[in-house]
């Protein structure tokens, strides 16, 4: 069976799409080791996206928490403001090589949609983005950015009008038009080969962390923390450390109003094994397998499943997954702004929050790396609302 991570993964999609994913896998296998493809991609990473992203020693935060040394991997400094651009540049370049002229994408917070619209503009491709109606309201600024970049944005009203519905609608759109269209899936999820392709393009994050930390400290980190929705920034930050057993890998899930409430998106904490959106993995669902209407303040983590490789790392006990509530994430969002002058995406703030708990329990000679997957400008209006203040964007 292809594309499995233990029992997870697979290709649970309509027959109509099978030849499309087979064609994608063949193209990816051809180009992934192609020197010319890799040269072009590295050039885009470095000169266009601004890689390598910085590994910053958060001195004040470290002193304030009084435990482990804290480093921040600054994916928020990438062009378009998040790690999403890594995967998108890779996939759109691949689509171009495959002769596709149109890309479609789902988006939650809008970061993946903006990144896709950006790469489409850069590489002269037609672009359509599907975004839950609810999210177009929560992230109105990103909708405007996508349109500015020349993309068409569709507000998805079906289901709960959030990320899962955007994924469903993009899958439906792909079955309508395959020949000239590539689906730029935004996370390490969906049918094989997407979880592998997206992981490979995002793994540049852990590759850089390893090199940068070796230069600064001469050793491996003791823990790497990242937020997890589908899990692309987390797998990117974990990947090159999976073989280094001394490095704790900690994924921070969105607990919303708490894992004991119905308003949560913490899949590992509350989900169970299922089949959805092309993959076998853990999903929030009821006893009859109906997918749960999940909730988180963070549109980017508001997803009822988790990528199959994370499910596998969890099964093996190689990675840990912890829930972080809205309240905790908002506090961390404000904390990092005040103590380091860095406004993280509300998604990334979930990882910052857990670091605030973990660092004081660790020794001063130990090291934590937090992946700041994106910047928080997009979240300011929503966080202000959360605090009872209404501002105009």
């Amino acid at each position, binding site marked *: *069976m*292809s594309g499995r991570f233990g029992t997870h993964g*697979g*290709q*649970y*999609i*309509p*027959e*109509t*799409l*099978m*030849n*499309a994913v087979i064609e994608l896998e063949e193209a990816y296998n051809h180009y992934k080791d192609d020197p010319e493809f890799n040269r072009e991609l590295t050039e885009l990473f470095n000169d266009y996206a601004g890689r390598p992203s910085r590994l910053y020693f958060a001195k004040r935060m470290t002193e304030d928490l009084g435990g482990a040394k804290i480093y921040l991997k600054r994916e928020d400094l990438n062009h378009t403001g998040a790690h999403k651009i890594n995967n998108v540049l890779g996939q759109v370049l691949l689509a171009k090589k495959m002769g596709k002229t149109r890309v479609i994408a789902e988006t939650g917070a809008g970061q993946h949609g903006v990144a896709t619209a950006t790469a489409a503009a850069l590489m002269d491709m037609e672009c359509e983005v599907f975004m839950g109606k609810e999210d177009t309201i929560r992230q109105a600024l990103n909708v405007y950015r996508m349109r500015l970049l020349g993309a068409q944005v569709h507000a998805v009203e*079906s*289901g709960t009008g959030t990320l*899962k*519905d955007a994924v*469903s609608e993009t*899958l*439906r759109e792909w*079955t*309508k*038009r*395959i020949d000239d269209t590539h689906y730029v899936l935004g996370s390490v999820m969906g049918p094989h080969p997407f979880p592998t392709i997206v992981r490979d393009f995002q793994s540049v994050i852990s590759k850089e962390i390893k090199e940068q930390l070796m230069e600064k400290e001469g050793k491996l980190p003791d823990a790497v923390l990242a937020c997890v929705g589908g899990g692309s920034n987390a797998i990117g930050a974990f990947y090159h450390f999976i073989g280094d057993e001394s490095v704790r890998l900690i994924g921070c899930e969105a607990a919303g109003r708490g894992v004991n409430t119905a308003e949560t998106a913490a899949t590992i904490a509350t989900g*169970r*094994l*299922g*089949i*959805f*959106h*092309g993959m*076998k993995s853990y*999903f929030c*669902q009821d*006893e*009859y*397998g*109906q*997918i749960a209407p999940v909730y988180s303040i963070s549109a980017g983590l508001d997803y009822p499943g988790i990528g199959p490789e994370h499910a596998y790392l969890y099964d093996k006990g190689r990675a840990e997954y912890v829930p972080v509530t809205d309240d905790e994430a908002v506090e961390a969002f404000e904390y990092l702004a005040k103590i380091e002058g860095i406004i993280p995406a509300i998604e990334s703030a979930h990882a910052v929050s857990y670091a605030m708990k973990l660092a004081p329990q660790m020794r001063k000679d130990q090291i934590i790396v937090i992946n700041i997957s994106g910047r928080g400008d997009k979240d300011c209006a929503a966080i202000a609302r959360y605090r009872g203040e209404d501002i105009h964007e």
Partner: protein
Amino acid sequence: MSKIQKAFENGKAFIPFLTCGDPSLEVTEKLVYAMEEAGADLIELGIPFSDPTAEGPVIQEANMRALSGGVTTDKIFDMVRRIRKNTQIPMVFMTYANVVYSYGTERFVKTAAEIGMDGLILPDVPFEEKEEFSSVCDAHGLALVSLIAPTSHERIATIAASAGGFIYCVSSLGVTGVRTEITTDVGEMVRLVREHSSIPCAIGFGISTPEQAKRMAGYADGVIVGSAIVKLCGQYGADCVPHVAEYVKAMKEAAISAEAH
């Protein structure tokens, strides 16, 4: 001869689809009897799923209505038990992989077979993933129906060679729903199946008018209609039964009037 094979014995088969519990399971049960009376040869019973990725808006909305009304897999099993006291018309479930997997594939398939269902259609389980379901279905004598699509090309041979029940030929790209025109060379798809199997072929997706039913039936052994019927259920609610019966009668007549191509 299996009951599914018998469904293709009355000339061209007409296969209607219903979303169970839309508007209620009582009405779904009445619809089954009325459709049989009106000439349906095999009935697809849709078990609603929260996120039906192969469906267009009409069936998506029916799924939402049914789930909001409290329909569950167990309640649908109970309805089938009641139906089987009154009719032996061939029936297959159509639902999504997670509904079966989450219930426990073994437990779901065993129950479905015991209460008298004849087959199972899972639109999100392609050939590559079918083994974990087909092995259980085979053990309990439930046919796992395979789908082929306009994009299947060389895959048709492999799929047809190991297909059970009948082959569901997807007429068009995209999701379920009414279409004004079907442009795929469906005849060629069926011809490729015929090269590798004598299994009956039924064409679905986008068929709503008697003219389309007649034309499509000409290419295959039967036609499947979903969205057009579900639309009537949505439009007339609890009063939909006579409207659906009248529609099924017209469609069956159109289908059997088709001449073989």
